């Protein structure tokens, strides 16, 4: 048996799954310390199912904490950036084109330093260790501990990034260093962006991941803890604490995979209504549709593979801005009403009127119109039918517009309505052929975490002069498939999701570093020794 947990900004959901059966589920408020909410959710599902903590084989947690921090520009560390490429790249210093409210948080601790490699392996300029030491000293005295290091062509030779990281750690022992080659491939700007975002999440990642571990320890679950990655596979808690940016798209991935699993539908638009936002994504052949070119995270371009998601500021905790004097109006001017984009978030249980608070939210309107049933309706203010209808119509229009923007073809589509706020999506929605609301729709995210995919990656330095390319790729693909199967993946459903080759032009014999990645579903009925991947980028040189 395994437990899947989704830690959102508003709620912490958990499911206990036995094979493909959901044995128990719960939805608890996310707590400020994160860990007590996680502990409460896990305790609740164990109690419901009557299962002892020792019977749990693994715990998988997906979290939107890191994505939210970037989107909301909160809890981010200032970052020192060392780019080793000068004079190349000086026209485009780090963070060029980033939103200014984000760079305001991250600061301008940028050092453009000599270094980097040419395509053919020559140095653009030799590494200047003195200047790296000086930069590290400056950062230390400015109390900037989160540091990102990038270098031109690091994916073909990471040596300069590694050496620079070593020097920084010597001079600045409190530094936590992210090296770009560990999290990205060719494309300096995108790789460096990801490294900077990762560094900005350093403190938060440490706090959040250790709070997960504390929660498990507190309730006596000793099963290994895994964190969902962007593509629905898992990494260890330690890896997630080091590379939080790799988990940043896991929320939408989990909700889409959970929705597909719960409904059995393979082609649809998934609308996941949370407390603060609605994430709209597209399922094609059972897989989330990915962005082809670049993925923006909080307005920053990266080249991660992630579901193509449209997030709108509409959820169950979204504020309805309307002058209380108009609550009983017989007609409402459109300009007098605004829905969102702000939300009361996890404070819904105190601030929404249903719960005795003073903020009118979408949940209050849904309950007032009889579309949902929770809280204490007697606490709701008097609202005229005209007002209720106008607000409800506005919500429907926002949802229908977002669906339209994600549609890939004309014609009506199937909608999978999930998430704690799915009551905002009615059974008939303009442009939808039908709306499916599966059992456990409220906790689709946690189900998605629990049914995590198994991934495996093989990477090898090869010479195409010695072995033909097609043979190399076929061999590595077979090996990746075998590793997925060995780790508990379904061999029938295994897919090669990436083949990436970087030519090492400075080595003889058409040398290339080839990486093949395969993923599959966890074998049906196999209870759970899901293991995270053996390694992140391992470089052969």
């Amino acid at each position: 048996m395994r437990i899947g947990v989704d830690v959102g900004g508003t709620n912490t959901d958990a499911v206990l799954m036995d094979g493909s059966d959901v044995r128990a589920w719960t939805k608890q408020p996310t707590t400020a310390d994160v860990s007590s909410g996680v502990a409460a959710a896990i305790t609740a599902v164990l109690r419901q199912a009557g299962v002892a903590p020792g019977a749990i084989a693994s715990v998988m947690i997906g979290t939107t904490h890191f994505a939210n921090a970037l989107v909301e520009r909160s809890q981010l560390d200032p970052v020192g950036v060392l780019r080793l490429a000068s004079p190349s790249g000086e026209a485009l210093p780090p963070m060029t084109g980033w939103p200014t409210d984000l760079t305001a948080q991250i600061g301008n601790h940028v050092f453009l330093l000599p270094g980097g490699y040419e395509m053919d392996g020559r140095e653009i300029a030799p590494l200047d260790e003195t200047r790296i030491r000086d930069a590290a000293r400056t950062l230390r005295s400015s109390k900037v501990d989160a540091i990102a290091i990038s270098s031109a062509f690091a994916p073909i030779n990471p040596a300069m990034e590694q050496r620079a990281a070593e020097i920084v750690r010597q001079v600045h022992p409190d530094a936590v260093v992210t090296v770009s080659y560990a999290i990205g491939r060719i494309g300096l700007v995108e790789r460096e962006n990801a490294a900077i975002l990762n560094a900005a999440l350093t403190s938060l990642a440490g706090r959040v991941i250790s709070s997960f571990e504390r929660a498990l320890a507190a309730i006596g679950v000793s099963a290994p803890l895994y964190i969902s990655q962007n593509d629905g596979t898992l990494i260890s808690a330690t890896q997630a604490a080091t590379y939080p940016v790799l988990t940043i798209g896991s929320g939408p991935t989990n909700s889409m995979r959970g929705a597909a699993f719960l409904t059995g539908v393979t082609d649809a638009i998934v609308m996941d209504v949370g407390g603060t936002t609605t994430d709209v994504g597209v399922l094609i052949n059972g897989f989330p549709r990915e962005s082809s070119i670049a993925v923006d995270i909080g307005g920053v371009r990266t080249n991660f593979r992630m579901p193509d998601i449209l997030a709108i500021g509409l959820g169950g905790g979204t504020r309805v801005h309307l002058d209380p004097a108009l609550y009983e109006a017989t007609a409402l001017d459109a300009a007098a009403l605004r829905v969102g984009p702000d939300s009361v978030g996890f404070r819904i249980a105190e601030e929404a009127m249903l719960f005795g608070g003073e903020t009118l939210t979408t949940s209050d309107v849904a309950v007032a119109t009889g579309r949902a049933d929770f809280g204490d309706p007697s606490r709701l203010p008097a609202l005229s039918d005209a007002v209720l209808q106008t607000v409800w119509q506005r919500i429907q229009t926002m949802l229908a517009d977002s669906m339209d923007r994600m549609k890939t073809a004309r014609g009506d589509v199937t909608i999978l309505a999930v998430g704690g706020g799915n009551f905002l999506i009615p059974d008939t929605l303009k442009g939808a052929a039908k709306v499916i609301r599966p059992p456990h729709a409220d906790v689709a995210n946690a189900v998605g975490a629990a049914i995590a995919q198994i991934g495996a990656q093989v990477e090898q330095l090869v010479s195409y002069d010695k072995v033909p390319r097609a043979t190399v790729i076929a061999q590595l693909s077979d090996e990746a498939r075998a590793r997925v199967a060995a780790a508990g993946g379904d061999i029938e459903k295994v897919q090669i999701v990436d083949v990436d080759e970087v030519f090492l032009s400075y080595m003889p014999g058409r040398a290339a570093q080839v990486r093949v990645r395969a993923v599959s579903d966890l074998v049906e009925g196999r209870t759970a020794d899901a293991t995270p991947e053996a390694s992140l980028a391992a470089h052969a040189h």
Partner: protein
Amino acid sequence: MRIDRAALADLATGAAFLGSGGGGDPYYAMLLGEAELARRGSFELVTLDTLADDALVVPCGWVGAPTVSVEKLPSGKEAMAGLQRLEAMLGRKIDAVMPIEIGGSNGLAPLVAAAELGVPVVDADGMGRAFPESQMAIFNIHGISACPSVVTAASGSLTVIETSDNVEHERLARALAIALGGIAHMVEYPLSGAQAKAYAVPGSISVAIAIGAAIRQARAAGEDPFEALFTALWESGLYAHAGILFDGKITDLERETQGGFSVGRIVIEAFDGQSRVEVDFQNENLLARRDGKIVAMVPDILTVMDRETADSITTERLKYGQRVKLVGAAAPAMLRTARALDFVGPGAFGYPDAYVPIERLNGWGA
């Protein structure tokens, strides 16, 4: 005419398509352009007919492999250094700058150079798309010398090429680009206003902006961005035919940096696995075969695009597994003359096949 921030973004979208996979992803050029716009407000664009016959008009752009350009970024001093050296050599001021090719980042790069030099950009270019080699410029087809030409690099190095043979000029420039790390900036084919008016591909910058705007507006309105692209191409008067050649997923990608180019082959398979298309590229996509039969040949434009958003994916940005549409468009008529085809047709790239226009290969517009 002025190019503001919104027009710059549209230009990036349009130039990415016209690049036929090459010319480099315009994203970095757009970032540089935006930074320049923050300082200056807007870029000045002038039409060919405003040029005096004796004006000095200078095409420029980047030469090398796009696969290198995503790692080895500009220092920012390359273009100015080259243009100023040309002014010093010719003993006169440059009156206007022009992209050597409208396709890819090279369609945007001259904007910043022109702004720094304090001159306008001419709404025209030397290729009507992007081509991998310098002698494929329309100016060479009409017998104009590429020289004097100035090659500059991020390191600060500067080399002047003087030769009367434009093919030798390309060979030298390519060797320089390789020696300089795989990418360099080049000022070439200095033109008189009269020559620019006679030979340049007219209006191509504003056409690229219109293409980008059409795609942007279609996306915003929830309409098909591909249809909007095709309409915009047809309305431009330069690109008479366009259509979708294939729809599927990239299942193999061979991409290598060789001889100063990014060369390779893309395989796209249909979702039902029943059909496939293979695209050869040398910086630019050159030729496509669907199930063994040729469906598009250079100089016609051949661009891989995201199948939903219609974002053009330049060759260095292609990845295994991307879901794409392969889109073709007829090259401007001036590139399809018998004389032009000697320089930019399939034979110029070593293909034995005679050029057949894309509309004939696909039965379009009959």
